[in-house]
């Protein structure tokens, strides 16, 4: 079982590295392709020796819903960007910073990382620290905190863990 899994991760690493090589080089003559093969084999060998070919570096188990989540995150990103740009042009009097504890429901470290990074990625909110089941968030205004308290984003990230 364990061995099967590690072969799956090695194959996925080889595929990803080959695609990156082909996408970036754009040359298909023998010399450059064989150089690519040598580079891919060398990187896979080194990663194997370092023991970093696992589900942490190759999150294959993330469900397909991540694409839907990315699109939703993009929409949220644009909305919160517009809010922050408005605040910038209105001046410092329009911000009213707060810190708050936000409850999180994710079980896995990957889910917590996705949630915390999503919060930091949207302008207006930054994750300062993650404890066991709460997160410390700094926000430019209380509205953002109130939105996070509704747990909308939290539920969407938790669905990715299934």
């Amino acid at each position: 079982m364990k061995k099967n899994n590690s072969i799956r991760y090695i194959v996925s690493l080889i595929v990803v590295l080959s695609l990156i090589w082909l996408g970036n080089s754009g040359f298909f003559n023998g010399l450059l392709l064989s150089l690519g093969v040598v580079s891919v084999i060398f990187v896979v060998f080194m990663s194997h020796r370092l023991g970093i070919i696992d589900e942490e570096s190759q999150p294959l188990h993330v469900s397909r819903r991540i694409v839907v989540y990315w699109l939703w995150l993009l929409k949220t990103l644009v909305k919160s960007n517009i809010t922050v740009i408005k605040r910038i042009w209105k001046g410092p009097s329009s911000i009213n910073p707060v810190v708050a504890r936000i409850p999180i429901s994710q079980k896995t470290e990957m889910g917590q990382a996705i949630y915390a990074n999503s919060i930091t990625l949207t302008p207006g909110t930054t994750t300062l620290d993650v404890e066991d089941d709460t997160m410390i968030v700094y926000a430019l205004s209380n509205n953002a905190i109130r939105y996070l308290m509704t747990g909308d984003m939290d539920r969407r990230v938790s669905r990715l863990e299934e």
Partner: protein
Amino acid sequence: MSIFIDGLSWALLILGGFICVSGAIGMHRFPDFFSRMHAASVTDTLGGSLILVGLMLQLDGEYTVLVKLILIVLFILLTSPTASHALAKAALHGGLRPKLGSNQEEQDEDVLRSFGPVKSEDTKNKE
């Protein structure tokens, strides 16, 4: 058709440039370190992405350029929250505290206490 794509590309580039300038202005207008970080993240996320998408429309069938631009967008979107978080946490551990507004809830006022001692209670930030 190519005029349409060119126009769209220029619109995206100009909008992205405007957002980047807004981020830079916010960095100077906002009062303390933590709020300035938010202004900078506007430049990171929407400004940078719009400029790169605008550039993606400028290529004439050169797919390697497209791949490189997509990789740049991915790396920016993955690394910028990590950098913001590292900056904020380093500032907190260094004794810097955000200036909080009037809407701060009392029960959450003590959350920043776990980050160690406060250095020279914002003498530099008051100005």
